[in-house]
């Protein structure tokens, strides 16, 4: 049996805030053996990140750690900084979720790679440089020697995360702690980074702690799993055993939070409600008096969509593929070329005033439940704002009544309608945003990543709500998401977008199980290679 390299006993983390003390971690014990990959799973706020931050001595200044975090017999909690720094970065390293900001923007990646090498191994610049290039090659950065002189802003998110990994591994650590290292990346990049990390872990034989909310990742790479909730470990075990026989109800709920079900396509006789033909959206970049002609960028390039009543079209693609832009263009929130027909009427050339009455029928729910609600209005005011425009005659009392009913429709307590957005949770806020859209009895609703900012369990509830609302009101959805599992559960037709064009479309089963286009094939492989039910 391999020796234990890190052992946490009764770890506690407390934050002192303006509203009093908050216990983020309440007595957690775990251990990691050499060469082992341990996953810590939990939803946001479960304390999984803070636990490892405390271990590394990286808590924010208002945080206080207690307990024992023993690395090969040395307790890291309360260790003087000078001693801690002989272990931190040398024996235990950590990489983080935010690839875009985790590197210092002001230094070349070469400088940043060489710095910890020179610091810990006391190497000269020449030796450190060759070690740094070696590391860049190890993480598959092409033209490693030349890239040493690049600045972080010149690299993509995936590449930066590779550089981060190279920095973390440059001193041959015993243990790598990875805090959601792939969450902020696109699906295809995610898969590559995971593959890289799993490969490196096996080759270098180090231990790894992998913090994540994504059970698919856990299943793929972890030997053992700890499930955390409210600052405590609720269940632990070998990955296979835990997935097969979860004992704690929370673990079971987590496993079942994977969206399930399929949507049947609407009858072939269902009328076409929203039609876009050759929709093109272009942005001008630069240009002006002195700088010459502007560069025209086509965010959406001649895309055609046909949405029928009761249908859900899922639009999938990675960031920058033009899927949100397409949806906004179809709703005439962005200027576009091409024909758009709604309910048999050409709306592509209507001006703002002429569009206004139609807005009632064409609604949108946005991704960010924090940003999409005006912070100084009550939930009730937010939900009924559309009524002020489209049914200006109804009284304040009736509006309040309608708000209460809309709250019930989205399964929120109507008594909460005079509260302000900041007093609701993320899932509740998204329900308010949905209530705001459906109170107008629209025919078409664009759902722009409505579940992406939510935890899995909440996500599942929102998806069920959206499905119920659809069948009750015969709604048509244009569902935009990068999350293929969610799209599969929601949509009866799928369009795959890349660089502003549709590369493939068809029924979910066809597109997902038998992709034809090479990009779609890569996307599907990345998303589903590791999932049994996907």
């Amino acid at each position, binding site marked *: 049996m391999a020796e234990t390299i890190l052992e946490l006993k009764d770890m506690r983390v407390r934050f002192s805030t303006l509203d009093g003390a908050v216990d983020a971690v309440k007595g957690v014990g775990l251990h990691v053996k050499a060469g082992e990959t341990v996953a810590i799973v939990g939803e946001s706020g479960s304390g999984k990140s803070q636990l490892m931050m405390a271990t590394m001595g990286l808590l924010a200044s208002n945080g206080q750690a207690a307990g024992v975090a023993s690395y090969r017999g040395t307790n890291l909690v309360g260790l003087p900084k000078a001693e801690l720094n002989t272990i931190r970065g040398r024996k235990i390293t950590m990489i983080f979720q935010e690839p875009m900001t985790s590197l210092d923007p002001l230094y070349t990646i070469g400088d940043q790679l060489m710095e910890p090498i020179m610091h810990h191994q006391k190497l000269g610049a020449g030796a450190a440089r060759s070690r740094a290039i070696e590391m860049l090659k190890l993480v598959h950065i092409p033209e490693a020697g030349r890239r040493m002189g690049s600045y972080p802003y010149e690299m993509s998110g995936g590449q930066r995360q590779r550089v981060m990994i190279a920095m973390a591994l440059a001193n041959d650590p015993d243990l790598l702690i990875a805090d959601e290292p792939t969450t902020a990346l696109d699906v295809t990049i995610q898969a590559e980074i995971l593959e890289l990390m799993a490969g490196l872990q096996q080759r270098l034989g180090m231990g790894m702690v992998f913090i994540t909310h994504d059970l698919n990742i856990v299943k793929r790479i972890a030997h053992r799993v700890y499930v955390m909730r409210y600052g405590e470990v609720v269940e632990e075990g070998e990955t296979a055993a835990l997935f097969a026989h979860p004992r704690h109800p929370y673990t079971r709920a987590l496993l079942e939070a994977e969206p399930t079900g399929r949507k049947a396509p609407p009858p072939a006789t269902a009328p076409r409600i929203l039609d876009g033909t050759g929709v093109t959206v272009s942005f001008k970049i630069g240009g002006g008096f002195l700088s010459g002609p502007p560069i025209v960028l086509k965010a959406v390039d001649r895309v055609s969509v046909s949405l029928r009543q009761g249908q859900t079209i899922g639009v999938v693609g990675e960031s920058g593929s033009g899927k949100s832009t397409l949806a906004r263009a179809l709703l005439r929130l962005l200027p576009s070329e091409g024909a758009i027909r709604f309910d048999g009427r050409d709306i592509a050339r209507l001006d703002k005033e002429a569009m*206004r*009455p139609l807005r009632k029928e*064409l609604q949108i729910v946005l991704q960010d439940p924090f*940003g999409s609600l*005006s912070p100084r209005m009550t*939930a009730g005011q937010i939900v009924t704002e559309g009524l002020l*425009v489209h049914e200006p005659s109804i009284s304040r009392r009736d509006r309040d009544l309608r708000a209460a009913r809309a709250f019930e429709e989205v399964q929120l307590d109507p*008594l909460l309608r005079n509260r302000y957005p900041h007093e609701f949770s993320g899932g509740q806020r998204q329900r308010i945003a949905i209530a705001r859209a459906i109170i107008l009895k629209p025919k078409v609703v664009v759902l722009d990543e409505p579940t992406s900012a939510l935890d899995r369990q909440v996500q599942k509830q929102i998806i069920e709500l959206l499905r119920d609302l659809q069948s009750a009101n015969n709604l048509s959805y244009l569902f935009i998401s990068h999350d293929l599992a969610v799209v599969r559960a929601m949509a009866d037709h799928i369009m795959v977008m890349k660089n502003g064009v549709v590369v493939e479309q068809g029924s979910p089963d066809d597109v997902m199980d038998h992709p034809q286009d090479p990009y779609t094939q890569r996307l599907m492989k990345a998303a589903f290679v590791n999932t049994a039910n996907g």
Partner: protein
Amino acid sequence: MTDVAQHPAQQGRSLWADAWGRLRANRAAMISIYYLIFMAVICIAGPWFTPHAFNTIYQDYNRVPPSLSAYPKPEMIDQAVKDAVKRARVELDGWKEEGGKILITVSSAKPIDERMTRYIDRSSVFENAAVVDKPADGLRMTLGADIERQHFFFGTDTSGRDLLTRTLIAGRVSLSIGLLAGLVAVVIGVLYGATAGFIGGKTDEVMMRIVDVLYSLPFIFFVIMLVVFFGRNFVLMFLAVGAVLWLDMARIVRGQALSIRRQEYVQAAEALGVTRTGILLRHIVPNLLGPVVIYMTLLVPQVIILESFLSYLGLGVQEPMSSWGVLISQGAKNIPSANWLLFFPSFFLTSTLFALNFVGDGLRDALDPKDR
């Protein structure tokens, strides 16, 4: 369903209520608010209760130091008697003080005119002078007069005016200019910045270019030109000051308006078909209010300093009216002989500025969403 609506819904806590709660918890800010209220009250009401008018000149009390006990001091009575008798061109034989009254004995080679009591009355130390005793030859005379007791808690200035009253009156001027000019700057800045930020595009570009040009003009030059145009007039003064300080406000408001316009809740409102006016009134204005309030509390001290600065240069408020800047400039000219002339107005000005500063910081902490 309807019965639910009939229940009174729970009341939420708005961000404003939250901010107010946070502000109330901030000791420094609350003390500063009370101090500012106190300052405003004493400056507005104080001059009615001080025993002197701000423009009354006491000839015999030039630059007397601040004192809690009443004037005249004994040696001053002596001086005042000597001065008055000298002006009447008679000889002083002696004087004595009993129970708030003074008896002066004078003599002369020629018979003394009884009207010489006027010379005594003319001194700001005495009043109700009358002849008490006059021998028949008229070469000697004893006069009686009340000693006028005066309090100068802050001392007097170079012309013999009560500094306490003048400081309070100056406070009225400084505070009201600060508030009014601050308001002028905020109104111009908010309208200008919000228009530029909300309309955007070419209009925004042109409007901001104008602001840039005004920025690059030397600030003092601009102020002086405005003062020259408007004349050295108290009322127009704050217009000039306000007209100069709106630039920052305009930039801040424009930036905020631009960023609010990009918020998802504004996009959502556009998708609902809400009119421009609706978006402006329900979404942009309420969310702009926070930064505007914060900036306004930081602007008021700036205005007060600017006004004091102009007054210091002699471009602002004119005599006999006064502002803290005017008083400080006079005080600076009179050190070291009469340092209270510098000390009191400086203290009033500086403490007010401090308090405004703390209120501004407190408001920023209370309203800043980063804190949440």
